[in-house]
């Protein structure tokens, strides 16, 4: 379809869509006056029933944990999707490591090297903090996992591709990712065995301190590992494409 024909088609459908959009927005609840019942029940029961102060984490990892399991597996499967799409195709060869390294051009500047190295440990610590306090303060496995994965990429920025490859053996990252995904599912099975239903919160929530919320901190840790593993796998797959794969010979 030509560009012009596409714009004409878009203009016609946009008018229709704008009408539908206006109709839909007219039916929205008044801003600032949400009457949903579930949110109020969750907010009221998070602290007394689960000893967890973060109502969103209680929703995600306890009351709505089955959805989160599905969400986690979406991420897990998408890693395989990226791996399958970016695998070495016929007619491509993996460059020698030395060549790949040379293609990177001049190495990172001294300031980037220093800043990256200084930041790796604090960022790792921040990630662990965000994962482990997910049931108490804003954060959790998804957010903390991304921060943990970022620490690995600071290493890439400051030390270069080869050091990054050495610290990131693919099999270990794969095992961490799969272990995180399996861990969450196993917590669900634990609810089946020790409680009544799949993903039931079968650990007593406790009273105060870091280890409250029953299974919520465990689920947070499992998801944190899975997300960090998935992020490292996906981003390093793109890095491999840039640095290692030779263009198809024409």
């Amino acid at each position, binding site marked *: 379809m030509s560009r012009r024909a596409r714009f004409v088609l878009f203009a016609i459908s946009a008018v229709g869509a704008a009408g539908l959009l206006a109709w839909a*927005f007219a039916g929205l609840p008044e801003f600032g006056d949400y009457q949903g019942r579930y*949110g109020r029940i969750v907010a009221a029961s998070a602290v007394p029933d689960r000893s967890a102060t973060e109502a969103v984490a209680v929703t*995600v990892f306890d009351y709505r944990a089955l959805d989160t399991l599905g969400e986690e597996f979406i991420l897990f499967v998408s890693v395989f999707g*990226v791996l399958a799409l970016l695998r070495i*195709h016929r007619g491509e060869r993996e460059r020698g490591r030395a060549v790949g390294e040379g293609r990177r051009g001049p190495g990172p500047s001294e300031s980037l090297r220093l800043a990256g190295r200084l930041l790796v440990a604090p960022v790792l610590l921040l990630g662990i903090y965000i994962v482990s306090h997910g049931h108490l303060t804003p954060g959790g496995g998804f957010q903390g996992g991304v921060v943990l994965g970022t620490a690995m990429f600071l290493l890439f920025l400051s030390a270069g591709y080869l050091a990054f490859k050495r610290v990131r053996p693919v099999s270990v990252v794969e095992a961490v990712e799969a272990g995180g995904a399996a861990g969450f599912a196993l917590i669900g099975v634990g609810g089946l065995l020790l409680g009544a239903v799949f993903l039931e919160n079968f650990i007593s929530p406790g009273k105060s301190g870091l280890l409250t919320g029953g299974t919520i901190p465990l689920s947070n840790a499992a998801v944190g590992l899975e997300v960090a593993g998935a992020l490292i796998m996906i981003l390093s797959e793109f890095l491999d494409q840039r640095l290692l794969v030779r263009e198809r010979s024409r």
Partner: protein
Amino acid sequence: MTALAYGVAAWLLVVGIAGVVTSRNLIHLVVCMSVVQASTYVLLLGIGYRSGAKAPVFADIPTGTRVVDPVVQALTLTDVVVEATVIALLLAIAVQAHKRFGTLDPDRLGAIRG
């Protein structure tokens, strides 16, 4: 003020779709898709808002304080994760399209051959 949050959501949706339609670069197209998806975050969070309410975290406020809806915030988290996976897959497809056709312009991509 009432209409502003919903207006922002609608604006992001429209701008994102316009960007997708007029895009001349697959990477730009993927970024525009993420703008479309950002409108859903604003819409969800806007719907769950209660005037004068606090964030649903009881670490430093007493239980029973008026808070905004935690369920739509959990939905937004799901939304963000799904967006990240969709973008990773679309970018991987863009990399392969560039390898095969030597261009990122959607108009210049040929028919897909097996």
